[in-house]
């Protein structure tokens, strides 16, 4: 967790976005993660994604659990409120925050220890509750902050720096999320900015629970040639099931693709996600098909990435519960307190 602020210097030629902010306005404090840590690339991708989308930084709430991954919210969007909570419990804190004010953007940042082990229960249930948020797992297959123990996402046979080999089957957060009803599930690689940025933008815009499992290598403890979560293996074996472009609602769609090579998904606010097909009969709107493709790739030692699954017809928790249009945290006495007359009537039912 950094306490060092970045220099305030702004390059005069730095371009401002639609709301007059530059990339600098989306940065956080200086990172204290190890040099080369995949997590820093995730921060950078979020900064770029938010700046390009012209998100108002203060309308974002960033919430995390505990671990190296959960330090990430310090390193982006300084003007957003952050909450670094309890190990494995980010989902519940994010749920409460979202219920209190449905008008903010919520970014939950977690790790594989945080979400696949101590917080697996909370992860499963936030997916079921359909909280409208973007949930990112920075997945490195290891416990970095406690110096390199294997995590539950480490693949069977994967080895850490100390030579410890995973004897158990891994938990695949992406397939788990699909099965539990997440309406937007993607997997990416911290090293693939071109893929990660549009996924973050689409995930933030998607109405409902958006999940991105980001393979994010731990350079210090799990970056060996025998680790399935290291840079080498991920570079060599990650296969994009589709290419992703994100066009915000305000922008004109300028690119075009050959017929049949592209699928266009319009999100609820009018933004568009373009998925370039890669000739693999992959349908991200078909749950069974998605699970099949992911598992087939896994059997071959490959990591399927891209927008794995999307379903735009589900409702989020607020819609399911039919909460009022105004955020609950903005309701005051007049709207909430039934007053003495109603209480007198209630007293009569107790006599």
């Amino acid at each position, binding site marked *: 967790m950094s306490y060092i602020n970045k220099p305030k210097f702004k390059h005069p030629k730095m371009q401002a976005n639609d709301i007059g902010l530059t990339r600098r306005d989306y940065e956080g404090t200086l990172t204290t993660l190890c040099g080369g840590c995949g997590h820093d690339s995730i921060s950078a991708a979020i900064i770029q994604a938010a700046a390009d989308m012209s998100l108002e930084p203060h309308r974002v709430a960033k919430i995390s659990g505990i671990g190296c991954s959960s330090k990430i919210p310090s390193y982006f969007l300084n003007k957003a409120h952050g909450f670094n909570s309890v190990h494995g419990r980010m989902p519940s804190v994010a749920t409460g925050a979202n219920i209190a004010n449905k008008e903010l953007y919520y970014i939950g940042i977690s790790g594989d220890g945080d979400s696949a082990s101590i917080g697996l229960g909370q992860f499963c249930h936030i997916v079921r509750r359909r909280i409208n948020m973007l949930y990112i797992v920075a997945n490195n297959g290891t416990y970095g902050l406690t110096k390199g123990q294997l995590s539950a996402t480490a693949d069977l046979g994967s080895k850490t720096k100390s030579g410890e080999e995973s004897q158990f089957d891994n938990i695949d957060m992406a397939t788990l999320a699909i099965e539990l009803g997440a309406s937007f599930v993607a997997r990416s690689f911290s090293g693939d900015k071109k893929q990660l940025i549009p996924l973050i933008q689409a995930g933030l815009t998607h109405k409902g629970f958006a999940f991105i499992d980001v393979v994010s290598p731990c350079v210090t403890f799990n970056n060996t040639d025998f680790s399935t979560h290291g840079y080498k293996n991920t570079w060599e074996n990650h296969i994009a099931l589709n290419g992703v472009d994100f066009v915000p609602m305000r922008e004109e769609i300028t690119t075009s693709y050959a017929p049949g090579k592209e699928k266009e998904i319009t999100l609820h606010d009018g933004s568009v996600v373009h998925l370039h097909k890669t000739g693999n009969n992959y349908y991200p709107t078909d749950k069974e098909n998605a699970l099949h493709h992911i598992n087939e790739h896994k059997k071959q030692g490959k990591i399927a990435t891209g927008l794995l699954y999307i379903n735009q017809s589900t409702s989020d928790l607020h819609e399911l519960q039919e909460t009022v249009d105004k955020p609950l*945290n903005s309701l005051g006495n007049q709207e909430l307190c039934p007053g003495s007359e109603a209480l007198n009537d209630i007293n009569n039912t107790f006599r």
Partner: protein
Amino acid sequence: MSELIQSSKVAGLTKVNDFVVKFANVNGSGSASANSMFAKAVFRMGIPISPHNIFPSNIQGLPTWYEVRISEQGYLGRREGVDLIVAMNEQTIGKDIASVVPGGYVLYDSSKVLANELLRDDVNYLPIPLKDICLEEFEKPAQRQLFKNIVYVGALSAFLNIDFEVLTGLVGDQFRGKEKLILPNIHALELGHHYASNNFYCPLSLQLKKSDKNKDKILLDGNTATGLGSVYGGATVAAWYPLTPSTSVVDNFSKYCQRLRIDAGTGKKKYSIVQAEDELAAIGIAIGAGWNGARAFTATSGPGISLMQEFLGLAYFSEVPIVLFNIQRVGPSTGMPTRSQQGDLLCCAYASHGDTKHALLFPATPKECFDYSASAFDIADRIQSPVIVMSDLELGMNEQICEPLNWDDKSQYDRGKVLNAEQLEEIEKYGRYLDSDEDGIPYRTYPGTHPSKGSYFTRGSSHDSYAAYTEDGTVYAEVMDRLTLKMKTAVDYLPAPEFSESTGHKFGLVYLGTTASAITEVLDDLAKKGIALDALRIRAFPFHTSVTEFIDAHELVYVIEQNRDAQLKSLLKIECNIQEEKMRSILSYDGVLITAQHIEKSILESLQTLEESGKASA
């Protein structure tokens, strides 16, 4: 006329409006509504009552009891001994009959002959062939079972002289909207009444007489009051995990929200209730919502409190307001899940690892459950910290007579120190944990308030006045000292102790929560014996300074509480620096409400010892 009652050689108890009726049933047999109909009928006759459910952690088939103390003087505590038992449970009938005081009565189902060993010669038997009556009168098996309960209530109305109109009125109220059920229920009541009147001398010498003691009063359980108080207190978010005996808090919050919190224009809800996957998530959701500016609560009991410890530390250290209702039950571990105790005092006062302290409120009546639940949200917002309302099963799940609930329409929610966009605009540099007012309470903002000012990073790790991470021990210690100051400030926002009218005596009583139900009776009974005592009821933690003053002003105080380890006494020693010699514990921890008899006996024995050792009497 019954042979039995006439041949009985025992003189029946002669008591008017001052006795205990106990119902022994099998749970799941539909007895609960019949028994509460009995209690409510007595209440409507203007006679003070206090009913107590003693029930199993089970849905069907195990023994359950419902004990109703009737007291014209208004003593609402439990009283030892039973004057009339309705013995409907074959599993426990031996013990149940044995619990009746000499001269008392046993009402039982005489469709089956009572075993010889169950016949006592110092009590009166009231045999009613309940099963046979119902077999003859009702067709459906379910009715035959259910109406046995209503028939004995009808019989009791003849035995005890309950106004029959009051009973039929209750049936009408209970089944409003289900008119088809009214007639058969009234018929069942009549069957019981007729059988009793035709076969016994009615009423018995143990009987009821209309009174005027319940004017304006209501009959209410603590959890209903707590749920309703949360609606009035402005709670919009409830997150919970079902756990006896706290479940009905959220059930009632939900019930009253459906009635009172629907937006008239759109039909949409001005609240959200989430049944979480466990208690950890429940309090996590409340903390997330509290952080984001909604009034949020969770309700639980001992096992849930254990699970919530880590999060309570987070809320304390990162200064997030939440309200937690702890409806205490008997621990440790699963303990006795359906019995009552004041066993979580220490674990709530200092919940979580490291140096922590939490504000606790101790309601003693359903009305206080309502008042404290509503004000807990103001207190939590003012002190930006968890507030734990310490009820218990006895208070939460049993109806009790109390004053009607009231609300001051001029009162406004106090959201504490929250800066809006305009206020932030005027501040040069905002510090989330800056103690600008030197009362230990800093200013907060809700996420999303201002484009460039007011954002901060909330964290459970050590932080400075600007919410930045720090491992500087001096800065950490400063924050911890400020939190100490904050909890001192908090005392001013908490309900002050309640004192008895008497003052200046040598000995005093200190107690809290449901123990209060026995105290008036204790003071009256001891006064009759020439022993005058002062009494102080603690209503909140951290303790008000007057608690220390009270104890200091007495030679000896009896600290009365319902747990094994004298947890309140420990807290008094730790917090008020009171010497062990100044306090004597009176404890009760068998899972049922402490009685005046137990307290009186303990005090008398102690005074006797003191006298013998030359320390003089009260």
